[in-house]
């Protein structure tokens, strides 16, 4: 009887360690492919911020700069940040989801993606009193609504991503806080379906394509990152492990990245064509020609000439500071933001 019991306990021990061990993070330097080129796993999302990757692939810039590009696609920032924590990709452009990757997974922020970015908007119902209240903030003429009309209203958004930041900044403009309104959390796609189906008074939309569609469907834009002068700047993050072990390859990647952004900024039609090609290849069925053209008009990439115009990572740090103040993240996180913004990779890339 004794041996049987011992056997059972040992079995449980092995089983549980096996389960944990199986998932151990792949640490160590990046893998190398057949002809000796380093494979760089680049995280991406089928949106504006990742279009330069399509240029790198088409123009074979990865071969030119001595690395092999492998694109790993994500539906949104949340899973993409988690995957960085799990060591699934090395470097890549990410949006608000990056705010947790830098402090929590010790990822490094090395560059900003866009010089100006629009498309993340807040919309309301055309006949609502919010819209009738009109613009009431001198400094922000495009921000519509008022404290009285917004108090107690239902706001749809996703806690933990850009829509949450944008939504709360919007009501802060009128001196309102989380307690004064009814913030309902759901995934981005669900925000869109629920609002269209007549639920909620205001919808905060992080994804540009959904915002564009609602605007075209006649829902007036009452706020947004650009309108509230907190224009989003997605950032290029690099995993702690890749930064330590493959610094040289990161520099090569950034060289290819800037050559791609230079080409995109230089030719508007080329940018529209590349965007459409990238979205189609990654299974998006919801974009329209006109939508992509509008998107390329609003936004411009940071390219080799404008790399150091603005303070790199300023927007991301502002976002994290907001989350700390709002009680969603702890204070030490701010510290990590300061130390993890690294400019050396870009400096070497543009030498």
């Amino acid at each position: 009887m004794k041996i049987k019991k011992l056997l059972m306990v040992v079995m449980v021990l092995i089983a549980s360690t096996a389960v944990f061990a199986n998932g151990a993070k792949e640490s160590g330097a990046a893998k190398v492919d057949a002809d000796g080129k380093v494979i760089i796993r680049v995280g991406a999302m089928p949106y504006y911020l990742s279009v330069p990757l399509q240029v790198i692939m088409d123009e074979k810039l990865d071969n030119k700069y001595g690395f092999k590009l492998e694109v790993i696609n994500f539906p949104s920032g949340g899973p993409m940040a988690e995957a960085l924590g799990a060591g699934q990709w090395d470097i890549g452009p990410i949006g608000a989801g990056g705010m947790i990757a830098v402090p929590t997974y010790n990822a490094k922020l090395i560059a900003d993606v866009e010089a100006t970015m629009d498309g993340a908007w807040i919309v309301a119902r055309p006949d609502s009193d919010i819209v009738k209240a009109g613009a009431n903030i001198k400094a922000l003429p495009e921000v519509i609504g008022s404290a009285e009309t917004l108090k107690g209203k239902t706001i749809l958004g996703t806690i933990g991503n850009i829509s949450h930041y944008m939504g709360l900044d919007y009501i802060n403009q009128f001196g309102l806080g989380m307690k004064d309104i009814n913030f309902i959390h759901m995934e981005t796609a669900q925000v869109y379906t629920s609002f269209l189906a007549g639920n909620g008074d205001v919808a905060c939309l992080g994804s540009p394509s959904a915002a564009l569609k609602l605007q075209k469907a006649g829902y007036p834009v009452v706020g947004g990152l650009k309108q509230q002068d907190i224009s989003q700047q997605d950032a290029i993050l690099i995993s702690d492990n890749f930064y330590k072990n493959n610094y040289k390859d990161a520099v090569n990647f950034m060289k290819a990245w800037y050559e791609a952004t230079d080409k995109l900024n230089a030719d508007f039609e080329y940018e529209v064509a590349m965007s459409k090609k990238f979205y189609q290849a990654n299974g998006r069925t919801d974009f329209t020609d006109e939508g992509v053209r509008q998107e390329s008009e609003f936004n411009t990439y940071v390219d080799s000439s404008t790399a150091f115009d603005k303070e790199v990572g300023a927007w991301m740090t502002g976002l994290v500071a907001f989350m700390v103040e709002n009680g969603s993240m702890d204070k030490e996180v701010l510290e990590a933001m300061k130390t993890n913004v690294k400019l050396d990779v870009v400096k070497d890339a543009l030498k």
Partner: protein
Amino acid sequence: MSDRKEKTFWAVVSLSLLTIVWFFASQMESMKTLLPNPVDVFKFLVAGAISPIGQHNIWGHILWSLSRVFVGYTLAAVCGIVIGSAMAWTKVGEAIIKPFYLLLRPIPSIAWIPLAILWFGIDEKSKYFIIFIGTLLIIMTNVYDGVRSVDKNLLGAARMLGAKENQLFFKVVLPSAVPQIFSGLQVGLGAAWATMVAAEMIRSSEGAGWIIIMGQNSVNMVQIYAGIILIGVVGLFLVTAMRFLEAKLCAWNIRGK
């Protein structure tokens, strides 16, 4: 044979009746936004059968989903039977496994998504894990009940005929638990197929669940309904195939259909 013919006849009658009701409902003004026209949905499905939605046509999507269900399900079936019987047959096994079982049983498989990503990454492995963990607990329950409800007299008869203690499990307990195990496999398969949609919420660029999620991203109600019908039809097919298999393998069972 007539029973199965009768069943399919009634299935056709009632499902077509449902579609007709759906058709008239979708014409009514008030229901316009709520319900897409079934004709569009079936057109979408037919179109999807030929030209691709995203990277595959619907057969490709179904195959992708079935591949995930197949791997996760077979793993869960094997482990479920082994762990379930260990839990039911040996007192020590029960003492060790039962606490984990009671704690994990009520946890829905979607709750595992965050950990699945962190442990198994974002590709197929994490989907297999989600389907595995969801199905394992269901199969384990049935195996546990099946092994536990073996007729003690049969054990007496086997002992009387000279079977030794260690032979009893494989010679008497397991065979007599087969009907219960099979019903567990059947329910498990239904659950595995349903969990697959959760698994495809992690990150997928193909699969029946992906069609619905993509439909939701672009608020294409026709695509959402098409996805649901696809999952329902394939799910129904899987369960009936399993029932057919059971009738074949459990011919000796009094409960045979």
